[in-house]
């Protein structure tokens, strides 16, 4: 095996829910400093793969390494943006408070968030374009603002690997542009970003790497090499007619 250090290394990962495999024998290596999309049909195990890599669910077999060490020891290097629908936005708290939660891991058990955490949270809110919302009750946010709040919370974690579960789900064009700019900034500073993504049309434009998943790993690598019609058909079955034009364009030159 080469000595090159991978940001994420998944070996033989299998996850089962009630005897039914959700992920089957996944091997995956992700080099540092890239934007990678995980795509696949519903029920393909995209979120499961992400949750297993984060240590939120225990796999039946296999292991996940972050920068060469088991993922549970490397949690301080990992940030997470869950699906925004996974929490109750009527919870009694403010935007700034939610963003500050990103520092709870580094603060440990005893220390309270103070001035330093407040400054970091405000900087993150500025990056996502929401400094004016710091004291806003979170139930007053639009869907796009909720998403950007979660993104800001991950930014204050100051991690090296970012996992994001469908950050573009149901957001408006403004927010989508804001998010993609942040993803590119993260990549520019050497971070690795893994995104569960649904919109096949934008994979080529937004990401450098892609993993095609349908319980098994169908293909993975640089978008130019593996995001092909054949691989997509293997992943989605026959239901990808709309992609033909896209892949044809790629064949005739592309990037």
């Amino acid at each position: 095996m080469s000595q090159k250090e991978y940001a994420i290394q998944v070996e033989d990962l299998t996850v089962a829910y009630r005897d039914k495999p959700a992920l089957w024998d996944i091997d995956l290596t992700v080099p540092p400093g890239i934007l990678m999309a995980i795509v696949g049909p519903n029920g393909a195990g995209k979120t499961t793969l992400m949750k297993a890599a984060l240590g939120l669910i225990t796999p039946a077999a296999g292991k996940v390494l972050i920068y060469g060490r088991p993922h549970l020891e490397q949690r301080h290097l990992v940030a997470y943006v869950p699906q925004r629908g996974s929490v109750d936005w009527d919870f009694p708290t403010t935007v700034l408070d939610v963003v500050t939660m990103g520092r709870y891991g580094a603060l440990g058990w005893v220390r309270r968030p103070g001035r330093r955490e407040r400054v970091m949270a405000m900087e993150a809110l500025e990056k996502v374009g929401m400094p004016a919302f710091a004291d806003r009750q979170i139930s007053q946010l639009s869907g796009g603002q909720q998403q950007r709040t979660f993104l800001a919370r991950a930014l204050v974690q100051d991690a090296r690997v970012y996992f994001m579960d469908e950050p573009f789900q149901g957001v408006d064009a403004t927010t989508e542009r804001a998010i993609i700019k942040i993803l590119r900034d993260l990549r520019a500073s050497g971070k690795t970003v893994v995104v569960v993504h649904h919109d096949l049309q934008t994979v080529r434009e937004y990401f450098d790497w892609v993993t095609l998943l349908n319980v098994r790993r169908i293909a993975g690598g640089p978008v130019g090499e593996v995001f092909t019609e054949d691989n997509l058909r293997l992943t989605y079955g026959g239901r990808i007619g709309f992609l033909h034009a896209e892949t044809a364009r790629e064949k005739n030159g592309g990037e």
Partner: protein
Amino acid sequence: MDLAGIIHDLFFDYTLRTIALGSAIIGLVSGSLGCYAVLRRQSLLGDAMSHAALPGIVAAFILTGSKAPLVLVLGAAAAGWLATLKIIGIVRLTRLKYDAAMALILSVFFGLGLVLLTYVQRQPNASQAGLETFLFGQAAALLARDVIVMAILACVALAFVVVFWNQFKLLSFDPDFGKSLGLPISFLDVLLTSLLVIAIIIGLQTVGVVLMSAMVVAPAASARQWTDRLGGMVFLAAVFGALAGVSGAVISSSMAHMPTGPTIIVCLSLIVAVSLTLAPNRGLLWRWAGRRRSHRRLRLESVLADLYAMAMQHGDYQHAHEIGALNAVSSVPGGVEAGLRALENQGLVSQPSAGRWRLTPAGMDKVKEIIRGMEPREL
């Protein structure tokens, strides 16, 4: 009894002081911990735990033959725990959902408790007398010694809430994210649930297994109406719980044949009713007034827009029309005349002659503003 007398007794009458202090402690602890139960959508868990405590109490008596509060409380806690584990087990191992599992365990345990209670009461041994007070509680039996135990347990529970404030907040808002940070979420979950068990068993003797869940849910639900911060909510819920506890104790002691536990719950219901109707922003009255305001505004705007549309058919925004014509095109036919009068008071329309209406220049500006407001905006 007059107010001064009540206040005097509150401090100097042994029985009333003990009961009031005990009830205040119950309200304080169950109110603050209840916030987490409500926010985590586990309101029913408190109900299941307190009902499930009954067989534990009776079984503890059968096994030991003692009615010492500590023995009974340990039995209650053990049964509450067993019930919680069963609920979690059912959810994990079967296809039943959380609510069904709770309803099932609640009724099975409570039924078992009633069976055991009836069995014990049939025994010739007279020492069982008084166990049935755990059904609806009996505050009069509280001793200063019991209140001291309750106060110690309350301090422990509240200390945990303060020390693990951030952790409990994250556990309640976004447990998956907390786990990704490396927080021991399962441990925190068990800890918080155990504190809820403590809060419930503190109140069992006074309020009883049937009504105890109201002490968990009602203060939290009321407090949520008044504040948008977790700290404010926990504080207010504790205050509401304690307030209901003290007023219930005072009312029941100043009238004959008034049971303390149910009286506390009635006081709590009043707080809930006031909070649900009157609280700013979330209260029903507030929301109703807000809806009325926006209805009224929409009606006025629609009358104004109709007037404008009709006038522009003549190429002159000040062209006047009769009410009949406006009624014919309006989407709110009944409200046209009242709407016009209100608009006239605001100086947006005028009557050049009786029964004929036209826009004023200010009204025209308002129309432009409304049209601008209808265009799509940047979010």
